[in-house]
């Protein structure tokens, strides 16, 4: 699936750049990122999960194309891969920026029905978008806020009203997190395909990712596909 999607992305990609040339940006930095979700959510007891994603970025960043927020399809466990929930959900976004401060982060929150069919949150997680162009694979550890006390835990389980973050974006920042208690739950794997442009022009040399890295990632996937 990976190859075909990468192929899909290509024209899109060039389009973005031609657009860039056509317009005169006062910002001379354009980043495009293509993010491919392959979530492997490791929970034997959970099924039928879907995922919401959004980007968190600093003041100097602006999305130029693609969706900032989105929601994936609901996915069920496959018969082959026992514990994995695979979304294979492509999302693409382009950001432009003038300043590396506030580098975008991908915030992922996973939801799914509980025993009683209530839609509850199964995990929050965030990761910075990789800096270097190329292919990256990231594993985001997920966590959920814990109820404040035991009775509440019970009632929230019973009523399907688990504690949730007022804003999922809170997981991308550190402020205020000290008041919360969380429990870790599973992981989400995200595969990134990053392209950058004009980074060097602005004096930021992120450099290409080492070939070895890419190699290992692809080989990892190839084994997985089998």
């Amino acid at each position: 699936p990976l190859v075909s999607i990468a192929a899909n992305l290509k024209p899109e990609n060039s389009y973005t750049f031609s657009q860039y040339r056509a317009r005169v940006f006062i910002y001379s930095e354009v980043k495009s990122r293509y993010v491919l979700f392959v979530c492997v959510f490791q929970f034997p007891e959970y099924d039928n999960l879907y995922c919401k994603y959004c980007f968190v970025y600093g003041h100097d960043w602006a999305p130029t194309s693609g969706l900032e927020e989105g929601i994936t399809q609901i996915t069920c466990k496959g018969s082959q891969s026992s514990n994995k929930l695979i979304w294979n959900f492509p999302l693409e976004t382009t950001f432009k920026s003038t300043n590396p401060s506030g580098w975008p982060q991908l915030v992922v929150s996973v939801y799914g029905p509980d025993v009683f069919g209530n839609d509850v949150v199964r995990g929050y997680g965030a990761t910075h978008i990789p800096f270097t162009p190329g292919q990256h694979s990231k594993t985001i550890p997920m966590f959920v806020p814990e109820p404040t006390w035991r009775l509440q835990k019970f009632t929230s389980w019973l009523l399907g009203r688990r504690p949730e973050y007022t804003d999922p974006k809170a997981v991308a920042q550190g402020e205020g997190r000290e008041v919360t208690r969380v429990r870790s739950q599973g992981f989400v794997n995200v595969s990134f395909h990053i392209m950058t442009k004009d980074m060097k022009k602005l004096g930021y040399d992120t450099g290409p990712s080492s070939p070895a890295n890419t190699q290992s990632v692809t080989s990892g996937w190839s084994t997985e596909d089998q």
Partner: protein
Amino acid sequence: MASSGDIREKLRKKRRALKETLKNRDEDDVQALVPSTKMSKGKLQTTIKEPETSEEDPGETLKRTFRTQRERKKRLLEQSSYQQHEEGGLEEISSVQHRSEDEESADQAGEKSAVLSRPPTGSLKGRSSKILHSPGSQHLDDLVTRRLQEKLNAARSKGESLQEQEAPLEPPSRLQGLRDRDTVTRFDREFDLDRARRHDDPLTLGPRIKFREAEKRTEKDLPTSEEAFNFFTFNFEPEPQDGAQKLGRKRHKQKKTVEVDQGEEGEEEGEEEAEDKEVVGEGEDNQDENENQDEEAPLVQDEGEDLFVIEQSSHDFLEMKKAEYVGYRQLVQRESELLFTPSFRTVPTSIKLPENMKPRYLEDEGLYVGERPPVSLTNENILENRILKMEEGKKWFGDDGRIMALPDPIKESSTRPPLFNMEDDLDPALQTVYRKAIKSKYANLYIAGAADPEGDYQLDVDVSGLIFSHHPLFSREHVLGARLAQLYDQYLTRQRNNLTGHLTDKLHGLRSALRNMLNIHGGQSLSQAMQRRISEYSLEVRNTRQLRDSEQEKDRTLLKNIVKMWKDMKALRDFQKYTNTPYKLYLRRENVDRATDEREYEEEILAEIVEWEAESEEDYQRKLAEYKEQLEEWKLWRRKQKAKKKKRKKKKKGQSQDDTEEEDEDREASESEGPVEEGPSKPEPPEKPELDSIEQQVREKASRIRRKPGESVLIPELSASGNITATELCPRAETARREDVTRHSLFTKILYNDKEVSRTDSRSLNTDFRVHFGQIFNLKIVNCPQSINLQVFEEIGSSCSLLAQVFIPVPEPSVLAGNAPVEEFEFSSNQRVMFDHEGVGSDVPLSFEADGSDRQTLLTSGKLSCCVSWGVGDDDVPLAPHVLQQGKHSGLARFDPVTYIGASGLYDMKKIGEWATQSRLDPNDPKNAAIMQLLKVASSGEVTAPEYFRLEQLQEEFNFVTDEELERSKRFRLLRLRNQEVAEFRNYKCVPALEREVTDKVFQDYEKRLKEGEIIDTNEHLDSHRALVAKYLQKIRESVIHRFILAKHHYLLSDLVIEEEIPSIGGAGPGILGLNLFKLAEPKRPLKPQRKERKKVTAQNLSDGDIKLLINILRAYDVPVRRPQINILGQTSQGAIQGSDWLCNQVQVRPFVEVSFQRTVLQTTTADGPNPCWNEELQLPFSAPNGDYSAASLQSVKDEVFINIFDEMVYETGVNDKDKGKSIHSRVEKHWLGSVKIPFSTIYSQSRIDGTFKVNTPAVLLGYSKERSHGPTSGYDILRGLSDGAFITLFITIEPQLVPGETIREKFDSQEDERLLQASEKFEREAAQGYPDRPCITTIIDLNGKTVFITRYIRPLNPPQELLDEFPNNPQEATALVARFVSLIPSLPDRVSFSGVCDLWSTCDQFLTLLAGDEEEHAVLLCNYFLSMGKKAWLIIGTAIPEGPTAYVLTYEQSRYLIWNPSSGQFYGQYDTFCPLQTVGCLVNADNVWFNIQEYTSPMTMSFDIAKAQLWKPFFSRSFSHPGLSSVQPEELVYRRTVRAAAVELQDRIEKILKERIMEWRPRHPTRWNRYCTTTLKQFLPKLELRGGRDVAEGHRHELQSLLGDNKITGFPLNLPFSEIRPIVEAVYSTGVHNVHASNVEFALAVYVHPYPNNVLSVWVYLASMMRT
């Protein structure tokens, strides 16, 4: 008993004879020899035991002990006395008696031992008695029985009569026998016993008695082995009956005194036991006891044992035996001997540390101490106790008195990255790979010769010995001696090198060469090359001479030092009167031929003088040349100067002269004017060298450094042939030192690669402090040699300490055993050692001077001579590794400096440098950074340690630009300002990437604001005072914000996590059961739906357009109605207006509501009548300033929501001609009727506003009348009428519901009494618990941020006198006027000014100075005024609409309670329905605070009688009385009179501004101003002010009507308190008067500013539009 000694002598002789005959027995003896020391000890002890053995009672024992001691002394002196002959007589006799028997036994013993020589003769102690079960034991038994038989017979026949008398005497004799046993073996025991019996005849008597008894009983012919045993054992027993009793006692003692030396005793007893075992096979306990037996009481013990045996042996008594029982206590005691139960009590630190040492806590000293692994205290204590029991237990304790422990190795979190157990997508790099195990013998060899499997290398370490150059045990003489020896060594070395000789030879050679050169060319002109060579030669001569001189000087000083040292030493020896060292210095004189010597000397001096002269001459010439050169220069310069001067003079004379050249020069001169002043000074000619002085100098020097001519050459010779004074002749201290020396011994450990591989024997320290080991160790090595380390240990007694370590370089492979020279390695130790004897110690200051000056500190040091070389195999193959043979090019050497230069060489910079260059270290490799740094430092000369200490030494590296650059760059500035959250940049998006893209425009606003800080903008404020106040407020605000900035970043769980509340069963709130039940019962569409609580949203995540203001306009009451438009002048009466005809045809009023907020205007549909009902919801978007939706920012939004009620009027403008009357054009006009304004901040903090509000209607509304449809027009109540007006019912909220700003969770400091604060806290807490919706305030925060008790704010204060003077006779009017005055002070909510929910209360004078404040300030001021006017007044803390929590004023007059709204100046009766006050929380006056504990909170339904305790809960009660709090208010308020002229000026400016603005708002239409009307209106305004804006409508309207005639006029006066111009403009705009677009419209605008005292201004704006009809 000394006589027994003689007998023993004889006996000994005899035995010797016997021994000779029985050699084989002797062999046995030797084999079983116990260590000789023990033996000798045993002897000693047996002598002591002598008398004790016979003891019957302790007293006698003591006596006997003394006696024996005396005897022993005598014996020691070898004085045989015959005094005690009578005593010993008996013994003598008995021994004689026995002698015959003895001879027999001797034979038998010989026979026996012949048999017995076979059994192994190991350590045959008591316990190993099993040996007797060997085949030989049977023979033994037989023998024993036989012998016993004989003995018994003999005993029976003899000495029967003697038994009673002799019994007491037998034990000493027996023990004498014991003592006599020089060699004790178990096999000659019989012999010994016989011997004992020989002269201790009585000994056998006792047993004999017993035995007889036994014999009687047994009646057997042959005694059994048991009997034999009994016989032997029993003979130690004098009195069995007594013994039994004593046994207990003695055993008790024995247990206490632990057996120390049970060697020989045990041996003997062991023998007995052995047999005991064999025979009896039980009685283990007794045996054990025997083993532990004390020497002091062996007899008693024996007694006990014998007793047992007797009883057991006699079968008759078997059943009589008591049950074997050992008392518990005994058992415990016995166990306590064997077992050690560590206590679990804490061990005091003093025990764990060396004496006189205080625990040292490294942690307290700031050192890092890792966390120990957790061990329970009990376990730790047990361990400590156990360790302390052990030998050297203290070494397990650290300096802090705790057991040494490594830090806890367990980490909290795993350091390994998590491996996600996904079956196959594990990174291949992380996959476990199986590899076959490799044989490890040479695997870890650094020795790279893999092709060299038989790499058995051998390293021979030869430790030959060591010599101390200083040792703590050195005496002073030793120190000197060591120095002397050192100097002598130095001398010898110098002598051997003979540098002086070499240099002298060289000098001679050079000189002759030079002479030759000169001679050859003598006088002829020399070629250039020659000359150069000569000068070179002379230079060389000079250098060599200097070198030689210095060497000669050194030689001389050395010699002098040696002599001095020797003298010192001699002096010391004389002083201390003994000699310690064998050093002796001879000075050998070698006479020289005086004449030749003198000649040589003179020659030398002459030669030197000549050279010196030549040199100085040369020097002089050179200097002279220099001088001349300088002089030339100087002269030149002088000349120039003079010339210049001349020229100048010339110029002055003839100015007409035009000479460019001259000018040039002039310029030159002027240019060089500067340096001219300090030009070259006249050089001084060099002095001519004084040749006389040269000679003198040379001679002086020669006499200093050289031997005088003719003086004999002194050759020192140091020999160690001196005599050392014998120890006996030395004083005590020295003796002690020497003894100490003998106690010391040394050994050396050999550590190879930091592992101990071997150690030398321990050798004692000689008096000359030389230790010779002379041992060679052959080390077979497998691992590459990295370090060879010799550790010198000093052993004193049993303790040994590390003295020094010597690192020995790994030898080159070519260094093989045999050819390697022994090298000396110096070592030293910095141990501090001090002695109380003559030893000088180490690291102790030492002085040889009498006055103690010139102190020196000597450290233990010495030389270890050893030799390390590679071994040589059998076939002369060197056992050195190949790699090492390859030498420096080996990989090993390249990578490991330690192997290359040896560990000791690591401190040698040169070597390291050498190594680094050879191994071609990569300087960029971070691994080598340390070395490169070191080399750099080393090569740069001395190592310069920085003299400062830096905390952030890496700071500079992290600074990505310099500070100046950071300041200069606009982009960085922008970024920083944004980061600092400066209001203008807080949400600045996309800071440009490049510097040039940042425009200055960005900063304009910000800089302007900064500038404004200083400059008062009078334009905006129209009044300098107010501008000042505004600045002041701004400053307070900043300080408050600063104070609260921390609190802002505190989060609560609810801010971040949404969590359902715990459902409760039933009850209020979202109870799970209750909710569900109620939900079931709830009607689907209830008739009176309740507003539901919505989810709250924190404001921080919002953006523009997210927030909407929801305004639900329900209905209005008493909207003014129109007057008939077509007015006939005559119609004046009200009745006529309400004529039926008009009513039918005209609509009374068609009101609609228009809401404007942030310039967004929305309106409802039009309704009919004075009581319209709209029930419409309007949604207005809200945008926060700067796009900042944080709570703080939202709170400071100053925008207000204007809710205006308009009357919609439709005019028919006539028929359109074109359409032939078919279409009617109508024009819609809207007429402002009134407005309600609600600040956004109120909505935000209240989150919802729900209620009926009074509509602010203008005092005069042209064309309208106030319709009173309800109630009687003539009031039963005048006050009721006052509160009349239009009302509107509204519901306002924000969508989504925003979380109002958090109250500051911070405690403020206070000057109040702590008790009061606690009481108030408690009061408020209780109030909040009991009545959560009733506000209760007891303490407030003043402007300084301090907590103040609320009653301090209430104090009667005088209102402005002018106001009181206004209505001197009408107190009611005056009251109203005061209220109006207060209400005219502009209102500014605290949360707007301080951007946080915190009520800061300013005092009245502050309030009047600031001229801005919250409701509280207004209320306090009003209350204080009322109090001063003699009214009963209270402050009401409650909630009102729309303000929310607020403060009102309650007065009591004419038996009625009046509630005053201080912000509007209006008052309400208690039962007024439209009173905005909704909840009364508490009442405050100067004395007390009362909290409302009634059922209801609404003023209408409650009682204000504070005296009733069940209705009002007072703060200060009897239990807690009022402490007499002084007021924070000033005693009196001072008012400034407002200048009328200023008011007039302001009035003009406002008018101007308003006119401009109105024209701006009508950009497409011309705005015409009707001057006539304006002046008319202007006249009205003061009147309105005078009346307080009440009821002037009628007269005014008529007046206007009459003035303006047929003009249709709409308009109204607006009254505002003056704060700024902006609210006035807003208010005018919101009326919408300017929106009349008719072409013929004319406007009239009049402004009137009425000044009240203290700059309180009332602004009236009369705005009217006119249309000509």
